[in-house]
């Protein structure tokens, strides 16, 4: 498919809307939240669109970790299916968006190596790319050390990025520089792809992905400054100079020690209790991130209203699907650990 606009997005739009209709409704999510335990949750989920994925595994093997893995299979299929039908000029953006999970896998493998975990422990923590990934995860785990594992990435786009950080890894024996460079590189490439889109696509993608980028950048800056106590120059070097609503001055302000709560409140005036959320104690920052993710959720829902012939529709669906799975993983963890509803519900993005 080469064209964009109506002819390019007609089929994409039709297919995505059908897939969109299979997302869980707040009522369904509510019913899932009310299940008494993990097994009942799995039984209920088998009657949703996730059923076929969960039924691939025998009940006795369906551990919480494995269940989360199976749910992500559905997202992997959605990505493959949508990437295959979007117009040529939009495809690189979706491919790059999909790489988010590959970067996460890579970080998980590196952590697994450092902790000396067995492959069987790590494999179901990874996003199920199947054969579509360039990361030789199992071989990397077998390599046993970070340096030879990174060498196995030689023919992939990650090698050059990681090679700059390897000197620091060798000196500090910390994965932090490797993870930061992977993240920065990922978001830089994603933003480049957004900027290369044509007008309407660029507007839609900037709105949705720009908000995600803003949230990520903002969280980095606050975490580095408030939690890790990094210096101004380090915070600046570990963050991005661009965004949608969050500008470089905001990030530099946080880096220089300005009141993060004030900056967050100015960028997102609708947020409540921001001062508590950015405070150092407790899990305030996670709650702030959750509130901002709910904004992304609302923006994705809004993308389905109005002119449907643009990249916003597939993008919004994929992100909604991802957020839905994040909620389901919260449910899985809560039900398997017998956490009461009033506690786990505050960690869910979809309100039910």
């Amino acid at each position, binding site marked *: 498919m080469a064209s964009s606009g109506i*002819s390019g997005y*007609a*089929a994409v*739009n*039709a297919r995505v*809307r*059908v897939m969109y*209709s*299979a997302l869980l409704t707040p009522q369904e999510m509510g019913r899932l939240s009310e299940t008494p335990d993990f097994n009942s949750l799995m039984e209920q989920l088998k009657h949703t669109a996730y059923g076929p994925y969960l039924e691939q595994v*025998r009940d006795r093997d369906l551990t919480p970790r494995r269940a989360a893995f199976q749910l992500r299979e559905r997202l992997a299929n959605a990505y493959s299916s949508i990437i295959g039908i979007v117009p040529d000029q939009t495809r690189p953006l979706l491919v790059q968006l999909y790489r988010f999970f590959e970067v996460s896998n890579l970080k998980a493998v590196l952590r697994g190596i450092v902790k000396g975990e067995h492959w069987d422990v790590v494999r179901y923590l990874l996003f199920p790319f199947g054969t579509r990934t360039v990361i030789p995860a199992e071989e990397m785990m077998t390599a046993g050390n970070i340096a030879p594992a990174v060498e196995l990435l030689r023919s992939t786009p990650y090698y*050059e*990025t990681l090679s*700059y*950080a390897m*000197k*620091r890894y060798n000196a500090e024996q910390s994965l932090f*520089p490797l993870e930061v*460079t992977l993240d920065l*590189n990922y978001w*830089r490439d994603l933003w480049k792809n957004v900027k290369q889109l044509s007008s309407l696509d660029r507007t839609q993608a900037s709105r949705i992905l720009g908000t995600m980028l803003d949230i990520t950048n903002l969280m980095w800056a606050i975490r580095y400054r408030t939690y890790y106590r*990094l*210096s*101004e*120059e*380090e915070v*600046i*070097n*570990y963050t991005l*100079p661009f965004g949608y609503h969050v500008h*470089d001055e905001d990030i*530099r302000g946080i880096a220089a020690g300005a009141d993060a709560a004030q900056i967050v409140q100015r960028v997102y005036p609708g947020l409540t209790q921001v001062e508590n959320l950015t405070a150092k104690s407790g899990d305030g920052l996670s709650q702030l991130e959750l509130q901002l993710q709910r904004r992304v959720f609302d923006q994705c829902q809004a993308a389905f209203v109005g002119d449907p012939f643009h990249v916003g529709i597939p993008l919004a669906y994929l992100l909604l699907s991802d957020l839905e799975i994040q909620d389901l993983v919260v449910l899985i963890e809560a039900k398997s650990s017998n956490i009461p509803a009033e506690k786990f519900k505050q960690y869910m993005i979809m309100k039910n």
Partner: protein
Amino acid sequence: MFYPEEMTEIELVVPAKDLLAVTKALGEQAIFQQSDSSYLTGESELAQPKEWQDKASAYAALERRIQTTMQALELAEGEPSKKGFDAPVDVNSVQAVVGQLEGEARKTSEQLTNETRQVEYLEGMLRQLQPVADVDIDLSKLQGSHSLFSVLGVMPVENMERLQTSLSRIPFVFLPLHQEGKEAVVWLAGSNANSDILKRAVSSSYLNPLTLPENVKGKPSEIIASLNSQIANSKNKIRDLKNTLVSLREAHTQRLQRLLWEVRSSRMLTDAIVRYGRLKYTYLIVGWAIASKLPQLQEKLRKVSNEILIETFPIKRSEVKQNVPVALRNPKGFLPFQDLVTTYARPLYNELDPTFLIAITFPLLFGAMFGDVAHGLMLALLGVLLLSKKVKALRSLASLGGLVTICGLVATAFGFVYGSIFGIETILPALWIHPMENILTILGTAVGAGIFLLTVGFIINIFNAAMSRNWGRLIFDKNGLVGLAFYWSLLGYAAGSFISNFPIPKTALLVTAVISAFFIMFAEIFKHLVEGHRPLIEDGVGTYAIQAFFELFEALIGMLSNTLSYVRLGAFAVAHAGLSSVIFIVGSLINPGQGVVYWIIVVLGNIGLVLFEGLIVGIQTMRLEYYEFFSKFYNGGGSRFEPLTLSASDKGVN
């Protein structure tokens, strides 16, 4: 040939004593695909020690070690023994041998890797120093200065701007000295009073400072000379180590290759056993076998085990409810075309294998676009050359040889039809027409051919649906009966608008089009009705209505674009003549006297044209097959039949 091989589901109950013999027999025939039946293992057996699993892991580890040793010695894997696989090797004895060979190879190989890395490291430093080669300053003194903080190093280009931003509150000098790809050699300097800030900025921006070996001191030009000498020394060592590896390789080739295949076969055998179900005294084996070869498999199994129980369940195409593996059976000459089909998708078990259709239509479509006696023969010769594997650089393309030869010969035949040789249409008489002189006729005929092929596509889809008793798809699919009615009523309506006295009234055609459009739009509801599937609409009326509208819209656009797409058949035939004439015109312009230069241009131009246009026409033909033709009837998505073998070199069935 028209359908994949018929399959039979097979279940075996094997006494433990015959386990190895039966597994070997299954692996030797390469006609049995194993299904994982380990979940059938009884509860009491689950608690028993996992003897076979441990063995499989041990063999896998051994195989990896042998492969690593062979890689260190740059040794190919070779072929499995012609005598075949006898019995699993003893893990302990092989471990001892592998340990000894591994030790010898590893030591030399590690030294070689270290020396190679040393050369890479020194060359990296050289690259960083080259931009400052002319600077007449002792670098070690600069780095040890009391008042100046200075760093020379490499960093990602993308981080350069951010580094400067991060230092905006202090005075500094930043000079990019050299940039190559995503990497830059830079020099950063500032006051030593700010060294803490500068160090943190350097580290967080991934600026890797150049660290000179302790024995290397002086001006850049002196350091470069010293580095060059060290590189030369390391390269000498590398040469000696490579010679050592060659002698090791010559001494151990046969032994390592034999060990690798023995261990690999043992690993494959144990892997297969791990996937069996285990009961108290027997093993359960489940899988698929090619129906036509089942009797010989049964005979062989009964020979090796008197007590084996064999149950078979033939799978009828019309009753397929599960994913049956697909083994294709086409004559050898059709293999290039089969590859074209499987590149798109492997057919389903109950679906027509379109290889024979591709074998007919692909060369015809290609020939129609590339019709030229001389160019077709050149292409056919290229195909023969590829098949012969005589040119080393072209060996990887050998599998395309047959396809290229056939396409070349058909293009030659079309050359006679068009009366075209080297793109010149004045030498040979045309058996039909000269494309350049009859552009509208050839374009119209091309669209006609497209309508014919698309109609064939509709008919095959209807046939496939009938064979799989999918009545909903047969009648209501946009490529089924209503789709065909819609397509032909639109064609008829269009024809009636241009042709006076068209035999069918336009109103009748319009009514047919509207009725069939209605069925296409709401096909899902009607399919559900026929199949007894409830609810009729699954995702709400609103969503369904939007989807239904786009279904019809897509069907209409698809039919129109698919039909017009075949115009390219005629357009390329015309373009071929035009492009060819350009070569002669350019030759005449550069060398009007038609001397040597003229003929060099003509020869090279024609070779270039055959390769370039051949490639483009090949891609266009593939497009017509895949997008226009296949989309009418072909679903694909079948899974490949992967027979159990005890040697990875057995290719088995396609």
